């Protein structure tokens, strides 16, 4: 999985931020490459499912369980989405 270009990263963050803020009920949540589940109190197993479902809806893509397992942080998500052609 390659790294998203700076322009792709900017566009994807802009795209996914409303989903993160909605799922975790935090209007001020800053979404960036380093954000991960340990940094968000509301990021539990149930909200994780909702997050993945809504990200698939938003981007029109599907993740595999291996892809999810390899994402250590939002950076991994951004690169995965870029690899699927999101914000290309």
């Amino acid at each position: 999985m390659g790294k998203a270009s700076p322009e792709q990263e900017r566009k994807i963050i802009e795209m996914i931020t409303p989903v993160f803020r909605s799922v975790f009920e935090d209007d001020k949540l800053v979404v960036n490459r380093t954000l991960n589940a340990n940094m968000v109190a509301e990021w539990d197993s149930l909200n994780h499912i909702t997050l993945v479902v809504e990200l698939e809806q938003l981007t029109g893509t599907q993740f595999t369980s291996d892809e999810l397992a390899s994402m250590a942080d939002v950076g991994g998500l951004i690169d995965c989405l870029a690899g699927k052609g999101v914000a290309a």
Partner: protein
Amino acid sequence: MTSDPFAALAPGQTVERDYAFTAERVGAFSDLVNDHAPVHFDADFAGKRGFPGRIVHGFFLSSIFSGMLGEELPGPASVINQTSLKVHSPVAVGQTVRFQVAVTQVTPAVRAVVLKLTASAADGKAILSGTAICSFPPVTEG
């Protein structure tokens, strides 16, 4: 027949159920949740507030989806993660309502399914609409 019910899910699958909101059932629900508000029991009170008569509790209406989700689609191996429902019009005590659940999205990576929830009157008038996200918890041995 598949051993994993999640694997059998696909967008477009639909189930329907008709449910009669009889006075007896409304009374039983009221006792169960301790909601005896007059709009559900006093026709005059309800009529003065613009309703055609006693109306069914909104939560009673939405609870029918619980049985459909748990027993039919996506079925007994699933749990509800999230629901969102909008009430479009009231239901009079005694009215029968048609409920529908339809699969709109399957997300295998987290074993989740998104469902469209709708309820309508006999004349097709919308009563409820919304969505649910259900997931299939992994089975652990022991």
